[in-house]
């Protein structure tokens, strides 16, 4: 009897701590509640909107998406563009980041600042800069013609190519930063161990360093891909009407046709796509390498 009471008394506070918030701490919950309201409510409203038409519940927006081949084309283009940009970002980003990580700390910091400064510059400014560079008579074409590498100016602005170039530039920091922190955490002795066991520098990189950097590559790649899926400014300006992404279609539906329902449905599709990507990457990264 006495032991039971004692045990009950001891257990009660422990159980309390896990379950409820002490009234003294309620004020700290205010920001969380506000954020939830501001984020979650429009979100739910968006979802609801996509399932309504003319005041009643309806699947007409999704039905239209399935029936109209242009939607499938836009979705396909968006995914293709995002995949291509992410692939290029990964191929360029891995050696760049590896190079930065191997520098002494002061130089690595300087190089990271070099990555960060364009990152802090307005997206719009950078996109316009690319428009200038990629034009028919822009800097790049002029140089290539002057050097005799090409006869006629390449068509880079207002195209899929130009959009890709611009987006790769914008996405690179989003890939490099998480990868840098992942690579920094890799124990330098791992590569040394591989070397002492007989691996050449490149073997040690492929067999040991790269596998250990995989979670960082996945995280950075996913970030880049997800941002690409919803990207608006750069494809709009650099694509010059020759590239249409989901976000551009959403914008059209809202501003030109006031089709809030159709836009919401596209938004929901984009969201589902992003969630699926997260789950896929979660499944891809081996559990033992997750931090």
């Amino acid at each position, binding site marked *: 009897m006495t032991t039971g009471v004692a045990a009950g008394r001891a257990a009660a506070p422990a159980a309390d701590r896990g379950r409820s918030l002490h009234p003294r701490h309620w004020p700290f919950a205010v920001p969380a509640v506000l954020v939830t309201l501001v984020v979650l409510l429009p979100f739910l409203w968006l979802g609801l909107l996509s399932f309504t038409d003319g005041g009643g519940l309806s699947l007409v927006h999704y039905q239209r998406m399935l029936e109209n081949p242009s939607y499938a084309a836009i979705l396909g283009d968006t995914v293709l563009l995002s995949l291509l940009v992410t692939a290029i970002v990964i191929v360029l980003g891995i050696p760049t980041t590896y190079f930065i990580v191997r520098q002494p700390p002061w130089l690595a910091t300087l190089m990271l600042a070099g990555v960060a400064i364009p990152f802090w510059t307005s997206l719009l400014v950078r996109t316009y800069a690319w428009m200038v560079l990629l034009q028919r008579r822009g800097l790049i074409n002029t140089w290539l013609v002057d050097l005799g590498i090409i006869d006629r100016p390449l068509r880079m602005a207002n195209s899929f190519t130009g959009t890709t170039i611009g987006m790769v530039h914008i996405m690179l920091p989003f890939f490099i930063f998480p990868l840098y922190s992942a690579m920094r955490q890799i124990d330098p002795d791992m590569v040394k161990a*591989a*070397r*002492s066991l007989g691996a050449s520098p490149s073997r040690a990189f492929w067999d040991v360093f790269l596998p*250990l950097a995989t979670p960082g590559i996945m995280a950075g790649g996913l970030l880049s891909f997800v941002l690409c899926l919803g990207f608006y400014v750069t494809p709009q300006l650099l694509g010059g009407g020759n590239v249409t992404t989901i976000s551009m279609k959403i914008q059209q539906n809202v501003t030109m046709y006031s089709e809030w329902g159709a836009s919401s449905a596209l938004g929901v599709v984009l969201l589902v796509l992003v969630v699926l990507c997260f789950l896929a990457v979660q499944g891809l990264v081996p559990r033992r390498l997750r931090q």
Partner: protein
Amino acid sequence: MASSITIRGLSKHYGAFAALSDVSIDIPAGQFVTLLGPSGSGKTTLLMSIAGFAHPDRGSIRIDDQEILGLEPDKRDIGVVFQNYALFPHMSVEENVAYPLKLRRVPAAERAARVKHALQAVQMEGFGARRIHELSGGQRQRIAVARAIVFEPRIILMDEPLSALDKKLREEMQIELKHLHQRLGRTIVYVTHDQKEALTLADQVVVMDKGRIVQKDSPRAIYEQPRSRFVADFIGNSSFLPLSGPAAASVEALVSDGFRRRQLDGLARPLLVIRPEKLEIVPAGESEPGSFYLDATVGEVLFQGDLVVVFAQLGNGETVRLQRGTRRTALSTIPPEGAPVRLALHEEDAVVVEEDA
């Protein structure tokens, strides 16, 4: 088979800091050599220079008759056990141990046999399919050793491989490593800052300080015939008493002429090194020739289980430390705190070194 290492005039500077200055050493084939020293003494730099991860400014390192300083680490054929083991977490135990064989294009069947053999050597057979994160610290240590010996390197280097283990496991692993060395007959160079570990494992102990080798000897000689105050102080819990100047008055030196000739002559400021277990408690007034005598007062008495440590205060305020086993008969000879006590150190147990400038 086992190889010898010959190091000549090795120096390495980091800015103004000399990590190694003019280090020369011969390590015969098949020996177990421990590099012992405080942090910053250069022992790890020396080890990493042999492995190929530190690049000395000057000097030479030869394995048998081959100069290796110009060789990349992967061309040196040296097995290294790192302090934190550096096992690859994305590979199983088996894949880790097989990795050096895979790099050497050993055929799969032979590879499997050699991996099995190496795992047996460290008593880890049956763990091949495990993941690294599923292993305990001691098991990881064994796998790291298996991976470093599986390709039968000429030399095995170990960088404080037991420092992450708790005391009991560390002592078990020391004995295992010693046996492994006896079975394999390879040359092993082993870095540690743990004096007991260095003495237990080694055929030869190399004591380093400030980038220099200060003494290289057998464990027994290192302990019983330290050649400098640094070595005597770093290894063991010695007390030091000056044998010259006014402070020498506290020591009655009834030593033989032979001892004076061998140990004292030629030293400007001789310093008596007193190992705590070599000090005897003798009856008051005893003064047989052939010993140093000290009159002291018993101070603090610390009971440590297997040992009892006594701090005795000399007339001039100096403290000497003595220790005894805790057998009944040994304990009963220790006077209570505050009591006067006469201590004797036989000249054959005595070491005299030159006081550092």
